[in-house]
């Protein structure tokens, strides 16, 4: 169940139905922030991609969704955190079509293209943190 707190909405990701929850929550929050139309689908899709990576590679993790304001711009930030196996070669994982999990290999690079900002930190044996932001167009 998603938990709402001062620092945003936290959705625990442990199976495929949690991906749907994270996606729906992200969409609802983005709508509150002021995003419309295809941007909502784009943010939801990006959340879906990184949530799916958690289920596929780390089995368990969480996604935190928060509204952000910086330099009078408004937007949403999505943080995906897991303590899974980590990614040995981030540069490669960010390439289109590279996958160790028999998928299209578009999750990380695709999510980066969908969002405005994308950061990834990963350490083998420790876990992975993906932070992505999308800003409202003025």
């Amino acid at each position, binding site marked *: 169940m998603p938990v709402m707190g001062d620092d945003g909405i936290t959705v625990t990701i442990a199976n495929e139905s949690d*991906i749907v929850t994270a996606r729906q929550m992200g969409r609802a929050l983005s709508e509150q922030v002021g995003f419309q139309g295809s941007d909502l689908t*784009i943010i939801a899709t990006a959340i*879906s*991609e990184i949530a799916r990576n958690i289920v596929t590679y780390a089995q368990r993790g969480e996604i935190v969704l928060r509204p952000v304001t910086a330099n009078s711009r408004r937007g949403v930030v999505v943080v995906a955190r897991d303590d899974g196996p980590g990614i040995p070669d981030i540069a490669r994982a960010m390439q*289109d079509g590279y996958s160790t999990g028999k*998928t299209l290999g578009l*999750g990380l690079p695709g999510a980066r*293209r969908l969002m405005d900002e994308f950061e990834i930190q990963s350490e083998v044996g420790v876990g992975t943190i993906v932070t992505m932001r999308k800003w409202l167009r003025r």
Partner: protein
Amino acid sequence: MADLDFSAHRQAVHLTDEDIARHKRFVGLEAADLPRIAAVRPIVMERVDELTTMFFDFLRGLDVATPLFRRGDLLDEAKRMKREHLIAMVGGVYDRAYVELQLELGLLYSKVGLDTRVFPGAFYHLMNTVGAIVMANAGDDPQKAFQNFMAVKKIGFLDIGLMIDIMAAEREQTISIQQEAIRELSTPVLQIRDGLLILPIIGTLDSFRAKQLTDSLLRAIRANRAKMVVMDITGVAAVDSRVANHLIQTVAASRLMGATVIVTGLSGDVAQALVSLGVDLGTLNTVGDLQGGLELAERRLGYRIARQADSSLETA
């Protein structure tokens, strides 16, 4: 329609030693409580029949409890088990066997359709009576008697905690069984003309459902000797790269079976997101809506659909 009685699939709920230990921690049950409970034991044992009767008398006064009192045989069984439970409550051993007894009683209650929500109230009255009896027998040390009673009360709260766990586990089981049923029901493959199938997909396409859907589509293609399939995804809540991949693979497998798939109902928003993601949908035949997809499929199969000039709808 499938039989919607899930009781056959239901598995008995079991709590582990760890669950029990956790509940003991919640109520703060400790070794020092055991001699206190032991001190109350003879007082309760002496009146165990009286307390059992009282518990059921309280239930009898509630409308929601009438189902139990209509079943004489089960009522006697419930009374016997409740008596046993009361004895166990002051028995000093709270292990899995103790929980099993409660589970059995709970199973019996649910068999007669008794709402478990009435029990905290009934339980409260029971504990009140036990408290009154303990205090009446306090002699010259009421403080000690109170302490003893509070130790027994911890067992009461332990029971309620366990009951909540059991109810939650049962509820979750129901949900997962129903989810399964929904999955089964929601992937129909329909033949609408010779050689033409439609596959309306509604809801969330997870890996499990995608596989099931591919299986049933490939079976239907063979059984109906289908040449064209219209797959409508208007009702799919979310399309990401994994879902797109499932669709692409289903289409490729269908092609190997000799059928061409037309995908309809891809919304503009989803199309944009998929292009940004980098999904190559070039291998898919897409048509905007279901109607357009059906028309194209019919044309490909050589059907010509024409409206008759004297159609009654025309003049209506």
